[in-house]
């Protein structure tokens, strides 16, 4: 996986700004680390050198921290200033990262929700709503550790590491060569370890997930077992499955931690080799103590960001996976948008709705529900849709709202088509005439504190009072007590008597009795995949 998703940079403003700020702070940090190392070398060199220091051991880099810093007062002042600045940068970095992280998460969440909300009922029926709900409520939160932990380290890896390398090269080329040789070995060995262990860890991972799912399944069923008096046995099975899962997990960790070990091994060993090599060259008089001290302090800093990037890699992987899922979703083309426009919707008032040959494929494409539905819903009448569950009554009502494109058939008003498989009238002008009450209405934030029955009443009231000429009711009497049911049926009747076109999907005998016409809805096996 890429360390940085280009779509985050291109499409999410706060992410782009934050990445620039983080990179800037990375350079400041690099500069501060450099000054700190040079000051330490300046301060220690005079007391460690057996003879007075003749020349400037920091070469060109001495211009950043002049030789005056060799005195305790000056050197310590500079060092204290560096410490103060690093404190401020650490504070600022953490503060900005949190702020940017939550902004990016909010923005992505709003984009995904907005996108899904306009995808239409067919998409919702496709069975991905649970996955998207998890993504927007929990998954995207994984981006926070990505922004707070991983990204700053990544910024340091691309700023501090090269800066330090250049400085080391300027100070002591042989040390720079050691660093340059080991540096590419880090990614190389990590990739190599990854390749060698990939198959093994995939196998372990699969076993881990299977065993984990089995354990949870057993635990999930505990109330069922208790209700049948069979709850005592499975504890031992939980243990067995757990032990097997532990063995599989350890097997995969033994492999997974190898790459971490290679990373630590190479980076620490390289620093050790730099130190030892410089030691022997000091004895031979090939380099000075001031140079050696600066390089000794700088060498670990070259590797530190790389090590931290490795440490936070897993946190970042989850966040990036969530961002990837979000962008993939956002980039999906919505087929409904490609529909041809049939212009403004005709007036429904006083004209019959004609449905001919209406067919909608189920999400798995194996059935048509409804299949070839035909009906005429006259104004001033209640038309009931009847049929067993899953035959397509609710889907037929959704098609009448115009938000679900059928796979075949047309909906027309007094002969003017309003919906076909590839065309629809202007959405706003049609919806302004349609009142629809689904099963389990949502009502938005206002509906959250209400019971299902109360919400049903509230949603029905809204439809009855809306004055819209086409009223679509999906099982309006479920979740209601007997008295409310009678009242709902009476109001539905009154609405039709006042001239509205009412189409109702129902099982209830009382509702069917109140209807002027009853249409049987049936599904059929899809002959050819649509």
């Amino acid at each position, binding site marked *: 996986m890429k360390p940085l998703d280009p779509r985050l940079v291109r499409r999410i403003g706060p992410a782009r700004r934050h990445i620039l700020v983080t990179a800037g702070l990375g350079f400041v940090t690099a500069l501060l680390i450099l000054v700190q190392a040079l000051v330490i070398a300046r301060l220690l060199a005079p007391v*460690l050198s057996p003879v007075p220091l003749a020349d400037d051991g920091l070469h060109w880099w001495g211009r950043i921290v002049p030789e005056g810093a060799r005195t305790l007062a000056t050197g310590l002042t500079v060092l204290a200033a560096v410490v103060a600045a690093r404190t401020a940068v650490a504070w600022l970095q953490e503060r900005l990262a949190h702020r940017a992280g939550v902004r990016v998460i909010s923005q992505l969440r709003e984009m995904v929700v907005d996108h899904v909300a306009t995808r239409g009922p067919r998409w919702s029926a496709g069975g991905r709503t649970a996955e998207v709900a998890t993504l927007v409520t929990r998954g995207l939160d994984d981006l926070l550790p990505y922004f707070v932990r991983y990204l700053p380290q990544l910024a340091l890896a691309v700023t501090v590491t090269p800066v330090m390398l250049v400085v080391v090269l300027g100070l002591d080329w042989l040390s720079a060569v050691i660093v340059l040789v080991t540096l590419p070995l880090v990614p190389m060995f990590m990739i190599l370890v990854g390749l060698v262990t990939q198959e093994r860890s995939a196998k372990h991972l699969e076993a881990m997930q299977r065993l984990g799912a089995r354990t949870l399944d057993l635990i999930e069923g505990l109330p069922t077992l208790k209700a049948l008096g069979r709850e005592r046995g499975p504890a031992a099975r939980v243990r067995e499955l757990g032990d097997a899962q532990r063995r599989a997990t350890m097997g995969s*960790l033994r492999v997974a931690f190898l790459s971490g070990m290679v990373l630590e091994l190479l980076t620490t060993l390289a620093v050790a080799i730099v130190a030892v090599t410089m030691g*022997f060259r000091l004895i031979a008089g090939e380099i000075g103590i001031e140079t050696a001290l600066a390089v000794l302090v700088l060498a670990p800093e070259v590797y530190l960001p790389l090590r931290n990037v490795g440490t936070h890699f897993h946190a970042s992987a989850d966040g990036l996976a969530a961002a990837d899922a979000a962008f993939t979703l956002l980039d999906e083309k919505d087929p409904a948008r490609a529909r041809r426009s049939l212009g403004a919707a005709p007036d429904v008032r006083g004209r019959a709705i004609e449905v001919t040959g209406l067919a909608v494929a189920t999400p798995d494409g194996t059935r048509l529900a409804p299949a070839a539905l035909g009906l005429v819903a006259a104004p001033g009448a209640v038309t009931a849709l009847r049929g067993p569950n899953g035959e397509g009554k609710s889907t037929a009502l959704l098609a009448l709202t115009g938000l679900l494109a059928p796979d075949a058939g047309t909906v027309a008003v007094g002969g003017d088509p309003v919906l076909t498989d590839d065309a629809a009238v202007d959405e706003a002008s049609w919806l302004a005439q349609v009142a629809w009450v689904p099963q389990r209405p949502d009502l938005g934030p206002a509906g959250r504190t209400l019971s299902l029955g109360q919400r049903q009443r509230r949603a029905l009231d809204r439809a009855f009072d809306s004055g819209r000429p086409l009223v679509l009711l999906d099982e309006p009497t479920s979740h209601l007590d007997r008295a409310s049911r009678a009242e709902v049926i009476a109001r539905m009747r009154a609405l039709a008597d006042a001239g509205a076109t009412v189409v109702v999907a129902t099982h209830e005998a009382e509702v069917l009795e109140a209807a002027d016409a009853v249409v049987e809805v049936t599904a059929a096996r899809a002959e050819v995949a649509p």
Partner: protein
Amino acid sequence: MSRRDASDLALLRAAIRDTGVRRWAIVRAILAGTMALGSAVGLAAVAAWLIAKAAQMPSPADVALAATVVRFFGISRGVFRYLERLASHDAALRGVVTLRERAYDRLARSGARTVLGLRRGDIVARMGADLDAIGDAVVRAIIPLGVAVTVSAISVAIVAFLLPLAGLALAVCLVLAGVVPAILTARSARIAAVAGARAHAEVSAAALSAMDGATEHRVWGTLDDAAAALRGADRDAEHAHELAARPAAWAAGFQALFSGLALVALVALGVLAVQRGDLDGPSAAVVALLPLAAFEAVGAVPAAIMQYFRSAAAARRLAEMVDETPADEATGPREVPAASSLALDALSVAWPGMEPTPPVSARVDPGQVLAVVGRSGVGKTTLLTTIAGALPPAAGAVTLDGRPSSPADTGTVVAMTAEDAHVFGTTVLENLRVARGDVTEDEAWDALTLVGLDGWVRGLPAGLATELGAGGRSVSGGERRRLLLARAGLAPAPVALVDEPAEHLDDAGADALRAFVTRMRAQGRTVVLVTHDLSLLDLADSVVSLDD
């Protein structure tokens, strides 16, 4: 003391004790971690000494040992880190397995009321993610904190041995760099737990409402309102996060500050000591450069504190789940009657905090069927749970053969099939054996034929041995209901309670229910059936309605 009143720390301690993780396993991991980070400190110290010594141009033999030690530390860090990670994860995983078994066992033994009152999502979260979080306390909190203490002690010891005053300065800075960020992080975690969790719940609700009700919002033109509600919730969540992030940022700042102060102090003390002639050069180099490596271990403290809060919250949720009611009294094998009659006497039921249902009375003898009707949410399932003995009546009484029912009757005298009863991720046959362990294949086929599922099972790739549910073959809603009926018919308890959730059964479902009821009658079983489908009321000898 009830578990609920205990402090978070006590709860987490109890949970970790329950993992049975041996002290030695933790000590071993801390030792390995100490060797790993200690190697970094050692590398810094010996390398500083080596460079400073070499500057005095001694014979190469004088620094040969130091050079070897530097190389050793260069290798040992990675190796010991690897060993530490393996040791800590192994200890935690073993602990979680033990804890899960014990928690399962304790939950299974706890009152029927506790178990039947559990929501499916809750159990999975408690026994899955929450137990893992308790295990994480070992890996990500206890061991790093232990390593921080040992490595800091080693660093202080090295410096103090060379220059006592510098050792004191380092000790003070290390303690401050550990404790101050720990306090700030704890503050941040507390804010996040209260304000953050609330704001997060609001965001989730707004997002789900905007998506689930999308079609409704489009029809009624309220899409913008829903989006605005989500934006508002998001802004509130950002604000809550901002409050929590503030102390976290100070924690990061203070870590940098105290490690920097240590560096300034030790460089100054080292240089002064050499100038005064109290210390030789190489030792001063060790004192001055050690702070660069010594603070890595305490750097892990904030993350460990965050983990402590996560784990403690998990331990609390786990304790609360198990602590609802005392465990069942020890029950030996009980005499279960072959037939049992059931009476409801002005029975009114409620979960704590719920409005009690209107009182109902009925008597059902062996071979008879009682139907319970009522609108959704009125308490039909609660009534069944009470009849099953799992919940004490809010008023009135349930009697079985003339004696009051008790939690010990759940599953023995009264078998209940809840509307959300579980289909296990195992074979068709094992799913039926959930009712009774010794169901034979013939009995299984008989039960499946009764509910009209024989044809479906014959069509499955491995018949009775086909795996269902998670990871196996998916089961449609109708098939699931009929499979549960077949299972209910196989349970040996004399009283069967069946919660039929479908608002409208299809024909096959209705046929299955009729056949089931007929069979139960013939066997002289007592049946209570919850239904929404009024056309099925002719099956019952008596009907009670929970509607007012």
